[in-house]
């Protein structure tokens, strides 16, 4: 059988791989978005720690950002995958389960990316917070705002405005880092959900863009075709997000006088 042409390989449907590659791109995007949101949460907590007046919180936040920016992301993914699975396996064995229980790649990837990007995000949020003019906070206090209202009306929006370029950088980092989940990726998970007498068997297949390319490359023996397609899909994602962040920046700074 002669090797299939590029167009034959990239058909939509059971004959080709275009549909699989597109869904995998969606999964990559889902991993990146949830990792980014986790990172935003971790980063905010760490930024609060860094800005805190208590030395203990400052040191803890500094240790967190130093460690997770100084250690390779892949090592963090291994820590979460094997470490998390070891904990889950130990708990399951207490309840009589046997064998090794691997955690879903999606969960591991999202958490690991969240922790790592949170370390970068902390610096962005801290910088943005410090850029908020203190006079505006004073003015808000003079108007009687405090606590949550001050945060929501004055500080929060401005931190987002000043932090947006840095957050755009972190998003690009997260998008590219999401490829690492391919390393702990593809597994078929069977979940049994018992609802009274009803037993649902739920199957999920998890493969991100890179993993999907790897699988397709192995099954068609045309690795270059699929990796170059993955490159193209990643370029679409990164280019589209550069554009989106630029739009968001223009929108967020529309009320500012430009230098």
């Amino acid at each position, binding site marked *: 059988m002669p090797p299939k042409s590029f167009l034959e390989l990239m058909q939509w449907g059971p004959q080709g791989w275009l549909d699989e590659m597109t869904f995998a791109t969606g999964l990559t995007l889902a991993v990146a978005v949830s990792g980014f949101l986790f990172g935003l949460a971790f980063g905010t907590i760490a930024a609060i720690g860094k800005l805190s007046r208590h030395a203990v919180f400052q040191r803890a936040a500094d240790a967190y950002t130093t460690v997770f920016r100084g250690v390779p992301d*892949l090592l963090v993914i291994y*820590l979460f995958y094997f470490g998390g699975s070891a904990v889950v396996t130990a708990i399951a064995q207490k309840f009589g389960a046997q064998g090794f229980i691997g955690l879903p790649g999606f969960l591991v990837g999202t958490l690991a990316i969240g922790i790592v990007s949170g370390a970068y995000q902390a610096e962005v949020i801290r910088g943005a917070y410090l850029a908020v003019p203190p006079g505006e906070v004073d003015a808000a206090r003079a108007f009687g705002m405090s606590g949550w209202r001050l945060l929501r009306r004055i500080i929060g929006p401005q931190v987002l405005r000043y932090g947006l370029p*840095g957050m755009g950088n972190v998003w690009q980092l997260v998008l*590219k880092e999401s*490829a690492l989940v391919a390393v702990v990726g593809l597994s078929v998970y069977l979940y049994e959900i018992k609802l009274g007498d009803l037993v649902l068997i739920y199957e999920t297949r998890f493969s991100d863009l890179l993993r999907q390319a790897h699988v397709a490359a192995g099954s068609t023996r045309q690795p270059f075709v699929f990796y170059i397609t993955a*490159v193209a899909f990643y370029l679409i994602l990164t280019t589209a997000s550069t554009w989106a962040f630029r739009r968001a920046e223009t929108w967020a700074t529309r009320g500012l006088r430009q230098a």
Partner: protein
Amino acid sequence: MDFAFLYSSFLRLIAGIPLTLQLAFSSIGLGFCLAVLLAAMMRSRLLPLAWIAEGFVFVFRGTPLLVQIFLIYYGLGQFRPYLDEMGIWWFFRSPYYCALLALTLNTAAYGAEIVRGGLQSVPHGQIEAARAFGMSGFTLYRRIVAPIALRQALPAYGNEIILMIKATSLVSTITLMEVTGLAHKIISETFRAFEVFFVAGAIYLAINFAMARLIALAEDRIAPDLGRAAATIEMGKLSH
């Protein structure tokens, strides 16, 4: 804490340090040469040259390094007959050379942007003054443009060096046993992820800390008046 286990893991992991450093430094060195070439092309008045360089930078900065490694190591295998015919299959068959090539191309793309930024920062007046002194071409570049650009580019390049040391961990996915590859091996043998992460992480932190100090020293020497960019590892370009 099981110190005996930590110590034995440490002894096994340090065996991977030479490969980590070797890959990092050779790719940074080769990548820098390529980056200078790319930056020159991007500034060239020959538009096709500028387009090629910009396209290269766009592709390598816009995609994950892991995908680039797989594309070169697994992807090019598809063209084995042609590569064999050209007599370069030995290169693409070796995970080491493929990893080195991917790391070099990747860091060259990021480096090109840094070098270009450095070149752009050279004040026009300095070039005019040099021309008034009768300098031109290579002399002008060697004496005036290159030193000023280098000083400007050093903090960002320092960042890139540290990112590359971390990036070498990805080559473990194509069977090279550097520090992360060995860590993965020990974890899958013992399932003691926390201890191994602790030791391997400490090794990377130590290397990166030493590099950051060296870069700060170099900055002090080359550009004492600029004041050390204290935030060398703070901000700047983050990703690979």
